[in-house]
């Protein structure tokens, strides 16, 4: 049997390929990016058997996946947790249409916010949408769950969410592969009205969704991913969700005497929960993320048995778990931790040497001196690092696309000039519609679209904006003479500041596009070309 060392993300991708997935759509976002990167590298994609692509945003991804499901094919859509906010509209409606081909939505949460602006727990969304949620305990289970997820999706006519967190996504383990399933044939839904959510149809199908709930609970009780481990010391029962089980077992290498309920599938298995609650004196809940299960168990009145978890201070209310937090919660001793030596100094991430954004911001900082602090609305990408020293150029970053719309709101209220700074990929993700709003109300804002031809922060994925920015802006109604393209290098610093000054003075929407390739993708391209030449030369010599 084939075994490989794979990231959790990669195990999911391989699982989908082996489950006969036909289409994979994604917008990059840490810690989910490596799923689609793996599919894009796979031979199944390269030889044309599997469609895989980066899309404009998570909503377009999700809708494309629904389209693939409509024609009977198995589809995968992946995103980070905040990406699901963008895709929430189709996500909330596809449970009512149901599926034709199996549909799996992988959402990677980021508790402790290693690379995110919040730590929202996607299980709330899954429960909100009333669909099955899988939360693998380890990388092998993540792989194994993919064929099951597709089979269940088709059998129960339900989209399936898989929720993972950073540590599973970005940790490698040895994965044993299972058997490969063939792709589905193209076939239209038998009921041709299934995907028409007119109120008259939606009302009927929503009842079907509600009636499906007991089947989903039954699935959670019987599929085998939720496991009950008997224990002889019933003074305490332990419920773990997802990878929290590993932190528990880490502390009990010789085995554990308390009964454990390991949750890896939702809706919650009612009978299993009833059993542990009835037979144990108290319950301790370990959840990687928000206290979703714990809140449900306590209920509004919280007047049952003693429950320990994130809501009573046994564990911190926020942040990811780790072995020592779990040890303390279990009343075990943890090793005395030596202090970090005082010489150790913080080394925050920074823009790379030679990054075009540095030149863009250096020019902008100079121009903004005349207007004072607090006027630069920014967005999500590498360029958000300009919040930190030494540049300290930006004043806001809230969500994808919010730079343009917040600048417009502020300008509407009289903060003129207001400047938006957004990356090329973020602009096509969620900036275009806001720019149309600004054009339609003739707001006095200047939008800088930093065009480095890539989605940089997540490792240099293809940007949907490349080659299209001027045409998009013009199409949205920005006046041609106020779309200015700059080359952000030191040599042109004076010219660039002049253009910025002029556009800031313009009482209307202006767009400045500083354009230069990301140094990381540039270097990678040059290196790859060099290696290719070297290999070709070596091959020639060998022949």
């Amino acid at each position: 049997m084939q075994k490989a060392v794979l990231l959790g993300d990669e195990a999911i991708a391989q699982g989908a390929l082996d489950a006969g997935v036909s289409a994979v759509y994604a917008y990059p976002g840490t810690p989910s990016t490596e799923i689609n990167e793996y599919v894009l590298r796979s031979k199944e994609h390269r030889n044309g058997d599997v469609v895989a692509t980066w899309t404009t945003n998570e909503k377009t991804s999700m809708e494309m996946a629904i389209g693939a499901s409509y024609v009977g094919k198995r589809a995968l859509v992946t995103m980070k947790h905040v990406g699901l906010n963008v895709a929430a509209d189709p996500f909330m409606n596809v449970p009512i249409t149901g599926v034709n081909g199996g549909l799996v939505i992988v959402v990677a949460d980021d508790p402790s916010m290693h690379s995110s602006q919040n730590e929202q727990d996607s299980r709330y969304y899954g429960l909100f949408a009333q669909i099955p949620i899988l939360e693998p305990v380890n990388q092998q289970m993540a792989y194994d769950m993919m064929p099951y997820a597709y089979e269940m999706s088709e059998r129960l006519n339900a989209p399936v969410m898989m929720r993972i967190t950073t540590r599973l996504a970005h940790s490698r383990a040895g994965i044993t592969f299972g058997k490969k399933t063939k792709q589905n044939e193209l076939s239209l839904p038998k009921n041709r009205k299934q995907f028409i959510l007119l109120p008259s149809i939606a009302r009927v199908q929503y009842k079907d969704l509600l009636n499906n709930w007991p089947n989903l609970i039954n699935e959670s009780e019987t599929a085998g991913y939720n496991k009950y481990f008997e224990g002889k010391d019933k003074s305490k029962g332990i419920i773990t969700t997802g990878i929290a089980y590993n932190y528990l077992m880490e502390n009990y290498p010789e085995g554990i005497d308390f009964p454990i309920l390991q949750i890896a599938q939702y809706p919650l298995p009612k009978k299993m929960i009833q059993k542990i609650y009835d037979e144990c004196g108290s319950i301790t809940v370990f959840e990687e993320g928000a206290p979703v299960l714990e809140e449900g168990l306590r209920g509004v009145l919280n007047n049952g048995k003693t429950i320990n978890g994130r809501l009573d201070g046994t564990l911190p209310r926020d942040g990811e778990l780790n072995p020592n937090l779990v040890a303390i919660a279990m009343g075990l001793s943890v090793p005395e931790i030596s202090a970090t030596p005082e010489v150790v100094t913080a080394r925050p991430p920074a823009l790379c040497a030679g990054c075009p954004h540095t030149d863009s911001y250096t020019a902008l900082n100079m121009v903004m001196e005349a207007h004072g602090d607090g006027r630069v609305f920014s967005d999500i990408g590498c360029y958000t690092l300009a919040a930190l020293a030494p540049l300290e150029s930006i004043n806001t970053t809230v969500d994808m696309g919010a730079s343009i719309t917040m600048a417009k709101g502020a300008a509407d209220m009289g903060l003129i000039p207001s400047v938006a700074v957004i990356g090329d990929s973020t602009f096509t993700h969620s900036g275009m519609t806001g720019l149309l709003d600004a054009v339609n109300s003739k707001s006095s804002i200047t939008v800088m679209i930093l065009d480095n031809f890539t989605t940089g922060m997540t490792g240099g994925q293809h940007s949907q904006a490349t080659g299209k920015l001027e045409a998009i802006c013009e199409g949205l109604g920005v006046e041609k003479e106020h779309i200015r393209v700059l080359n952000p290098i030191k040599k042109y610093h004076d010219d660039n500041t002049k253009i910025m000054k002029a556009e800031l003075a313009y009482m209307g929407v202006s767009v400045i596009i500083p354009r230069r390739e990301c140094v990381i993708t540039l270097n990678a391209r040059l290196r790859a070309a060099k290696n290719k030449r070297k290999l070709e030369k070596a091959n020639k010599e060998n022949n």
Partner: protein
Amino acid sequence: MKRDIVLGGVGGQGILTIAATIGTAAVNNNLYLKQSEIHGMSQRGGDVMSNIRISSNEVFSDLIPEGKADLIIGVEPMEALRHFKMLKPGGWLITNQKPFINIKNYPELDDVLAQVDALENHIMIDADSIAKDLGSVKAANIVMLGAGIPFIGLDVKMLEDALGVLFGRKGQDVVDLNIKALHAGIEEANKVINK
């Protein structure tokens, strides 16, 4: 056998290559493996760390518990010290002595090196110079991997094979250079151990 190893360095210094080499060798050796790292924000010149756990029994947690690592391998001295709280009593700290200075307030190098020197179980080597003498400073990370090998207990042949897999597409000369770097690191560590 069971080893918990923390790797520390700066984005771009080849931490993940060290991790991938150990990981590939461990799994080919039929050992259980968990190897976690943080991607994303930390890649832009910030500090990067990876946890590697290998064992003949199932490994549960992706994270090494604080105070329980057998070994810290630093490709940069301050980054090795950054993870000091991970080290178990009696554990070894193995680091490159060459600093990577990309921040204005980098501490006095002598103070950093003195901290390392003060530890009972440490190995500090100039991996950059060793790698440079072998042909490319880029192999400094593999020199550091080599310096950790006597403490990890993996078969050297397995690691050589893993380097072959990981660097194969860059040409045989790159593979050979890295194998040499691996052995140079092992030699340096043995000098200290056999003292």
